[in-house]
C-alpha cells in the first residue's frame, strides 16, 4: 500500500501546526523560522510540519503546508496524491477568509482530494459559525466543521467528517 498522507492547509495563524500536534503520536517536526513580514506572530512554518498518526496499523503521515503565499509552491507538492485535505481558517479572523478560499479552490480544483474546512477558535465568544463560513465558501454545511485546533477530540472529529464524506456513511452517536 502507498503511504497515506493527510494535508492540513490554511492561512497564517489558522492553527495548522497545533492541529497536527493534536493528532500526531510523535513530536511534530516543524520548520519554523522568524517571520520576515508582519503576520501577527514571531515565527511561522516555511516548508512543512510533519506528524504521524497510526490507525488500525496503517500509518497516516500528517503534513502541514506553510501559510505564507510566498511558499505556495509547496502546496501542490504536498497535496499530490493525498488521502484528504483539512483546510483550517480561524473563525475570529474574517479578513483571512478570502485567502483561505483562494487556497482551497486552487488545491481542490486541481487535485482530486476529499476535503473538509475546519473553522477554528470556536471557543471564543465572537467567532463565525461553521454554517456561515460554509455559505461564504459556497460549500454544503456538512463539509465545514467547527473546532478548536488545540483539542485532540475536535481534530479527530474533523478527520472523521472527512472520512464520512468519502464513504457516504454517517457514523452514529458522534455529531
Amino acid at each position: 500500500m502507498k503511504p497515506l498522507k493527510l494535508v492540513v492547509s490554511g492561512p497564517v495563524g489558522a492553527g495548522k501546526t497545533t492541529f497536527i500536534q493534536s493528532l500526531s503520536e510523535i513530536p511534530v517536526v516543524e520548520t519554523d523560522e522568524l517571520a520576515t513580514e508582519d503576520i501577527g506572530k514571531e515565527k511561522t512554518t516555511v516548508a512543512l510540519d510533519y506528524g504521524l498518526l497510526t490507525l488500525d496499523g496503517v500509518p497516516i503521515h500528517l503534513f502541514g503546508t506553510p501559510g505564507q503565499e510566498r511558499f505556495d509552491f509547496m502546496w501542490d507538492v504536498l497535496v499530490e496524491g493525498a488521502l484528504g485535505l483539512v483546510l483550517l481558517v480561524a473563525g475570529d479572523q474574517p479578513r483571512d477568509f478570502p485567502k483561505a478560499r483562494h487556497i482551497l479552490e486552487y488545491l481542490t480544483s486541481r487535485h482530486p482530494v476529499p476535503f473538509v474546512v475546519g473553522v477554528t477558535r470556536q471557543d471564543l465568544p465572537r467567532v463565525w459559525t461553521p454554517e456561515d463560513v460554509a455559505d461564504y465558501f459556497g460549500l454544503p454545511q456538512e463539509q465545514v466543521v467547527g473546532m478548536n485546533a488545540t483539542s485532540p477530540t475536535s481534530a479527530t472529529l474533523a478527520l472523521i467528517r472527512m472520512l464520512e464524506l468519502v464513504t457516504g456513511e454517517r457514523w452514529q452517536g458522534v455529531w
Partner: protein
Amino acid sequence: MAIFGNLRDMPFPDLVGMLGRRSGVLELFHLPGKRTAFQLALDRGQVVWIREGSHYLNPLEARAAIAHLFALKEGAFEFASGTPPPPPDGKLLGWPLERLLLSLTTVVDEMAAYAPHLPDPHTRFQAASLEVWLEEPLWSFWERAKPLLERGASAEELSARLGFPLDQVRYYLHKLRLAGKVAPVRAYQERQVDEEKKGLFRRLLASLFGGRR
C-alpha cells in the same frame, strides 16, 4: 504635422482623449511582448475598427486589445489623419470613444479593487448555469468561454485558448462567479471513489471509533 511619440511619455488614455473627434488611423507599434502592431481607426469620436497585424478584431477581442493598450507604459505610436477605410463586413465597431474610455476606466478601477480577490490563474472553474443573461462585455466573454467552462478550465487555460490577457480573464471569471454562473471545480467530485478506497476509509473510521458503530 504628425502626431507621434511613445506611451512612456503619453499614456494611451491621454492620447486617445487628445485625439478626441479627429478622424484617422492610430498605429501603435514596438509594444512590449508583441510582434504585431495595433491600428485603431477613429472617425469623429467613434472607434470604427481595430486591427492587430492584418486581423480585424471582433468586439470582444477589440475590447481586450483596448484594455491591454490602456495599461501599457511603453510603445510607439503614430496617428495618420484622414477618413479611415471601411472595415470588412461584420467588423464595424462604431463605439463612441468617450464612452469606451469611461467604461474602461471603470473596469480598470474595478480590477484594481478586486485584485486581492481574483482567482489564482490555475484554479479551474466550470459553468454552474448554462441559461444566463449578462451584459456586455461579460456576455461575449461567456459565449466564447462556455465550451471550455462546460468541462472546466482555469484562467490561464482560457487566456491561452481565447487569446485574452490573463488579468482580464481572471476579472471576468470573478464577475461570472459573483453572478453565480461559474463555480470552482471540485476535482474530487469528478472522479468516482473506488470501492477499495472506500473500504480503507471505513477501516480508518472504525479504528477512530475503536470498532464502535
